């Protein structure tokens, strides 16, 4: 038997997925022109599937900082900080992140995925308990497995259900609750005030993953924790540099005593190379832009409300809140694939999200809005979505048969 025989069901799914035209999960851009435009198969396309919330990937200050670090310190660190030492830029960025959040300590990881792996695996261990939201990101699911604590899930965004499940945990050990600021599939936010109330009652610790909400929510861009006014009750904030900050990497900030010891306990921190100096430099510059330009957040929120509101008015089934993640529910994966292919034909790239990566088995067309999108670009995608939805019968409920 072939070693990869167990992947046969995946091959069948993949063949169905690609039969309609492009491969939605293997798309290859010829070039990227700006935060909102790229070239795909020789044609300009509008980018609505980037998570580039503040549009900082082409920010001149960020690019200039990266250039200087590249020229001055070379292409990479060639090792982990534990084994090969820390470049001063990494330490400075950690201090600036801690300052940005008003926390005592900060720690940088090489990706956002590793930030969750690194924190969750090191904060708790055998005999402890982790309770996670059922719609958590894959990095949370993988991180809690590495911890070897007992893991249970609570119903998505249901603080009452969280309380009930905390009450069922056997005595002994610490308990860590894990939620996200903005959930990546439907763009909905956690009911953080209610979750904090449950956390206080139970004596558990709370970690919030602000991957999609850092730089997006809160007066200073600190995320949902700031917007909900519960910063003092959140023990750990995890986030990423690959969305609002336009690069790659992850972090955690906290006021917890002995936080620095995690550097010697977190294997996903210890046993991987640290970020290249140029990435650290662009992220540091981007963090400064988040603070210096609150107008970017206003622009982003205006854009999100404009598209979300227009889609609701047009009769689309979208997520419950006007955050920069705007997902359209489509009746079946087949219809979602056909819709996605038509959008590419019209010069628009968005994300296709299918079960089991989605909640409740939903087939989703997922758009992420950027502060860099112009009103004309927002109107262009709206017009295309409406036209294709009418063509495929998405809005009428009379779904046209989609053939491969």
């Amino acid at each position, binding site marked *: 038997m072939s070693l990869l025989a167990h992947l046969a069901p995946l091959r069948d799914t993949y063949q169905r997925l690609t039969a309609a035209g492009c491969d939605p999960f293997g798309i290859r851009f010829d070039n990227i022109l700006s935060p909102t435009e790229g070239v795909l198969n020789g044609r300009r396309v509008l980018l609505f599937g980037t998570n580039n919330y503040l549009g900082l990937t082409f920010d001149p200050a960020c690019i200039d900082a990266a250039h200087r670090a590249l020229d001055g310190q070379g292409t990479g660190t060639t090792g982990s900080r534990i084994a090969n030492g820390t470049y001063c830029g990494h330490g400075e960025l950690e201090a600036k992140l801690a300052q940005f959040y008003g926390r005592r300590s900060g720690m940088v990881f090489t990706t956002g995925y590793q930030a969750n792996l690194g924190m969750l695996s090191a904060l708790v261990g055998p005999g402890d308990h982790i309770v996670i939201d*059922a719609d958590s990101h894959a990095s949370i699911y993988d991180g809690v*497995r590495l911890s070897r604590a*007992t*893991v249970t*899930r609570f119903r998505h965004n249901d603080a009452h259900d969280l309380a009930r499940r905390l009450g*069922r945990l056997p005595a002994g050990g610490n308990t860590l609750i894990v939620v996200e600021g903005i959930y990546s599939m439907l763009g909905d936010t956690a009911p953080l005030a209610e979750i904090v109330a449950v956390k206080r009652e139970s004596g558990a610790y709370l970690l919030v993953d602000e991957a999609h909400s850092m730089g997006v929510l809160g007066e200073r861009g600190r995320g949902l924790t700031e917007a909900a006014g519960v910063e003092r009750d959140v023990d750990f904030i995890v986030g990423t540099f690959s969305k609002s900050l336009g690069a790659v990497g992850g972090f955690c900030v906290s006021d917890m005593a002995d936080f620095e010891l995690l550097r010697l306990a977190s294997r996903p921190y210890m046993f991987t190379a640290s970020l290249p100096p140029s990435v650290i430099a662009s992220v540091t510059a981007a963090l400064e832009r988040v603070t210096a330009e609150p107008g970017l957040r206003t622009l982003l929120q205006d854009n999100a409300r404009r598209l979300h509101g227009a889609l609701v008015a047009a009769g689309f089934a979208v997520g419950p809140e006007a955050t920069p993640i705007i997902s359209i529910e489509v009746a079946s994966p087949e219809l979602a694939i056909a819709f996605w292919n038509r959008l590419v034909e019209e010069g628009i790239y968005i994300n296709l999200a299918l*079960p*089991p990566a989605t909640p409740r088995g939903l087939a989703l067309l997922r758009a992420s809005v950027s502060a860099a999108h112009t009103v004309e670009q927002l109107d262009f995608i709206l017009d295309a979505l409406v036209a294709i939805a009418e063509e495929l019968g998405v809005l009428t409920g009379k779904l046209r048969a989609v053939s491969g």
Partner: protein
Amino acid sequence: MGTEAAQVADRVASLVADRVPLREQVTADARIRELGLDSVAVMDLVMAVEDEFDVAFPLDRLAEVETVDDLARVVRGLVDQRIAAQP
């Protein structure tokens, strides 16, 4: 003293049957992943089991579960632990 085994098995089988396309395929030795449940559906089944029996079912215990009967056996153990822990 164990929890009434047949009763737990029936209630577990019923929860599985509620979630699969063909109820009649749900037998004690049916493999859960072959009944048409993906990884998320299995975890949602665990949540339903937790609510039905008022227990915490840690996800790592799924490693012990291939068949409907395996699931019932883990649940029986968790219910027994809960009863034993009561004052």
